């Protein structure tokens, strides 16, 4: 094998080993994440908390502000995603009802007519 080919091969092996180590064995660990990075079930529960609070307070603007930490999408989209996940995951009817009411309210907020 030519010397340059051996050099190239060993370089490629080194890159591969570095990637395996850096991505799989010891990946970068994040310890200070934002709510937007929450896993779908945790995210849905976060939205459910907002829905429970909204049900008592009936303050759609405040609910929209609370949902805004979950990402840059409109609050209506965030609420609808949570509602879809909750439906697929078999949440209790009472929780689905709360999430549906929040989604409806967020739709009005998005359209500029908060209840």
């Amino acid at each position: 094998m030519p010397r340059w080919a051996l050099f190239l091969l060993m370089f490629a092996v080194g890159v591969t080993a570095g990637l395996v180590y850096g991505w799989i064995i010891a990946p970068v660990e994040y310890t200070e994440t934002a709510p937007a990075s929450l896993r779908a079930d945790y995210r849905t529960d976060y939205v459910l908390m907002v829905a429970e609070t909204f049900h008592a307070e009936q303050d759609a603007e405040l609910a929209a502000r609370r949902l805004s930490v979950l990402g840059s999408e409109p609050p209506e989209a965030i609420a609808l995603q949570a509602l879809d996940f909750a439906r697929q995951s078999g949440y209790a009817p009472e929780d689905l009802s709360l999430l549906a009411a929040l989604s409806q309210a967020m739709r009005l907020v998005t359209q500029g007519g908060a209840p």
Partner: protein
Amino acid sequence: MRNFRQAAGPLLAFLLGLGAGLLIAWVIAPVEYVDAAPSLLRADYKDQYRLLTASAYAASGNLERARSRLSLLGDPDPVQALTAQAQRALAAGQPWESVRLLAALASALQNAPSAASLPSPTLAPVLFPQGETTAVPAAPRPASPSPAAASSQAPLAATHTPVPLIPPTPRPTRTPTATPGALFALTRQDVICSPALPDGLLQVTVLDAARKPVPGVEIVITWNGGEEHFFTGLKPDVGNGYADFIMTPDVIYTLRLAPGGTLVSDLAAPVCQTEGQETYVGGLRLEFQQP
């Protein structure tokens, strides 16, 4: 020597490649986590999470659900974390309502026995049978058996789609609190002379009609040129219906329980004497109760 040179070249190439690989993996294109657990949230977001949990608890009265949610944050002592946050909020001048909500949840958790045997209401055991791993490199995902376990195992993973297999359970009934509407009346006022206590300590205890401590009651104390608000329940280690305030000697205070409680006026730190006739500033103890 020639053999060494022949071996050094490929070794150098390997080390260069290894360095390049690590540079790519850790700096240029690090693993992107999209499925974090609440325990990994930044401190200020954890505060938001606790406050939202307290608000949801106030709205729903579901204590087990609140307990389950708080466990996701991975605080060693959730009650202590709530209390500390309430005190920080008070010191930072945040709305009284936030402080009251946090104190009320802390107190409810302290009073109610843990229902560890109950299933988690919302975040019931989560398995990932339909998980689809994308090309994004991932840390190994733990099989999250419960929210608490999930929080303790730093459950980061790549873009899987989690599917809770056990549906949430119905909510329990609201935790009983003080009789709504009934005003608290001053039932006891004592001078406390104890050199062991801080000078001018004003201790307030608020009880309901059944003489159970009531947390989250706002107390307003005013004096010439000043006013301060504080709440019962922020020191659950002393008592859920307990609150205190340090009085300045020679200042006359007026205290009332908000909203619309009876005024207690002419409160002042008393002067006490030790057995050796030395004087020191004593304290007061007030007890309020619902009729």
